[in-house]
């Protein structure tokens, strides 16, 4: 008989106690997997949400306002232009995943409001812009497909202000060009809500700015260092670089804080599991004091007894860990629902990401717990002298 067989059969002796300890370890393993899975999933989902914001870096002509509010404050003036050849220069950087060129145009509309107002048009490339801002949803219609179409997509507030729906005409003041509304966007809470989107080439033609751009939206590859990319872009002549990286960094530092909390909870779970295991094994050692003495009298060396008890602990942890990891895979959807109901804000996508790699990592941790927790009870058992057990026989 192998030592692990003896150890396994010993555990069957007190089935309820072994079962409860297994359950304790399983719950700890479940908590561990779910916490790590949540940690990973939440970070990934948040990253995805940030990435869905579109471009992380905006390159504009030096001095050009890049926010609609600034443009309005300046009365629609002050726009600066770059040649569209800059697109080639930007794409030369290997860290750049994709770009979208834009031309901002603003014009005074005397019919806007009571005393007129500035209408802002954003020329966007139908081939790249919708893909870059995939989070934009429509209440009506869809994006224009033809780069030369005299069509417009209205932001939510722009549509309300202009009182336009799809199929309606929209006049560009002074230019006498009529655009056909083909889509109205849902509310985003960003400056996109007040923007009138027009195909880039159409706006370039209408405002006589062929070959000119006011901005380029840049999406950087995931693995690239955004700050480094920004520095490189600054080397381009007469441009300014506006970054969303800081926003992301702030969010990520918040995530790091949350991570620390998660690890603290995980540590507590580990400690509880360890105490449970130590308690169970130690109790069983005390109960079997005489028996351990007899095992030594039939030929077991102290190290043999140490191994026997240690293996019992490790079997407990392996079985409990396996059970808990199994739970976490089976019940991951329930965990996700629970987490979603508890958190005030949750990003889109899967919040709890449990992989086989995570399962293995947790198993390794639980095994580590077993190895450490078993040390003291095994040491105590190894020190039992046969004579002590025989003396107790007479007590």
């Amino acid at each position: 008989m192998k030592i692990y067989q003896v150890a396994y059969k010993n555990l069957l002796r007190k089935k309820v106690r072994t079962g409860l300890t297994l359950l304790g370890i399983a719950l700890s393993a479940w908590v561990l997997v779910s916490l790590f899975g949540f940690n990973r999933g939440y970070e990934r989902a948040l990253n995805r949400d940030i990435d869905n914001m579109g471009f992380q870096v905006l390159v504009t002509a030096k001095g050009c306002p890049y926010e609609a509010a600034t443009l309005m404050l300046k009365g629609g003036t002050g726009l600066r232009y770059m040649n569209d050849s800059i697109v080639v220069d930007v794409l030369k950087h290997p860290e750049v995943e994709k770009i979208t060129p834009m031309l901002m145009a603003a014009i005074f509309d005397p019919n806007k409001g009571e005393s007129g107002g500035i209408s802002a048009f954003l020329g966007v490339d139908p081939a790249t812009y919708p893909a870059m801002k995939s989070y934009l949803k429509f209440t009506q219609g869809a994006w224009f497909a033809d780069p030369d179409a005299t069509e417009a997509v209205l932001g939510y507030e722009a549509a309300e202000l202009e009182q336009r729906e799809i199929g309606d005409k929209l006049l560009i003041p002074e230019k006498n060009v009529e655009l056909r509304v083909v889509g109205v966007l849902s509310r985003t809470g960003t400056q996109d809500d007040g923007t009138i989107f027009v195909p880039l080439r159409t706006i370039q033609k209408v405002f006589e700015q062929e070959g000119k751009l006011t901005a380029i939206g840049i999406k950087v590859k995931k693995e690239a260092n955004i700050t480094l990319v920004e520095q490189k872009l600054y080397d381009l002549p007469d441009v300014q670089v506006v970054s969303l990286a800081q926003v992301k960094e702030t969010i990520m530092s918040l995530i790091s804080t949350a991570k620390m909390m998660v690890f603290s909870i995980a540590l507590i779970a580990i400690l509880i599991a360890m105490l449970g295991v130590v308690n169970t094994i130690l109790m069983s050692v005390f109960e079997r004091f005489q028996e351990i003495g007899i095992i030594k009298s039939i030929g077991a060396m102290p190290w043999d007894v140490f191994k026997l008890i240690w293996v019992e602990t490790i079997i407990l942890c392996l079985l409990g860990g396996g059970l808990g990891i199994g739970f976490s895979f089976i019940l991951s959807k329930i965990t996700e629902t629970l987490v979603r109901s508890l958190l005030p804000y949750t990003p889109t996508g899967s919040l709890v990401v449990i992989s086989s790699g995570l399962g293995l990592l947790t198993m390794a941790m639980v095994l580590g717990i077993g190895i450490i927790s078993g040390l003291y009870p095994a040491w105590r058992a190894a020190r039992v002298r046969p004579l002590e057990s025989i003396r107790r026989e007479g007590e």
Partner: protein
Amino acid sequence: MNCQEWALEATGITKIYRRGSEDIPALDGISLKIRRGEFVSFVGPSGSGKTTLINILGCLDNATSGSLSLCGKTIFTERQRLSEADLTRIRRSVFGYIFQKFYLLPTLTVLENVVLPFTFFKKAGADKDPLEILRSLGLDKRTNHLPGQLSGGEMQRVAIARALVNNPDILLADEPTGNLDSKRSQEIGEVLRRLNENEGLTVLLVTHNPALARLAGRTIELRDGRIQGGASPEPPDSGANLRECS
């Protein structure tokens, strides 16, 4: 260990327990010789020191002073203390033990309990089939039973089988019938006698039971840590069933 004529030679064995500042003598200079293949019983009232003596002879404990040789090999001499590991090494190559309680692992079958010593140590030459040992003890139909399904006498016979599986030179039995009724006690006594007569196994038996003690070829009576005058510390010249030791 290669047994010589003497299975066991003890000289001037004393054991003093210290309780606080008080020294309590348990054994007072005991000397005895046990021939290979002898069956010796140790009797005496409670507290006479018989269990203490057999624990020291069986290397379960160190003596305070004295010397011990097993099968011609010196185990310890004056005031020499052996480590737990050394004692274990000697125990597992020389002795088989049975006690008042049977200490069978309740989740192991009879056969698994018997071969349990092999999990930790298999003595060279311990090649007797465990099933054959069980058969010789009348347990061949109980091999797959759990201890909880056996009677007290059967459990003690399983404990004897476990003690025999590593082919010991000396079998130590400390009150082996203490938990059994008279009929079962007699059965166990007969098993020990048969092992001694048929197998030539050296048997040291501690008992309160006079009928059991009478089965032995020699009885040593202890009182107050000394061998009583009537008991012979040396065996008769012959009469022991000699067998080759492993």
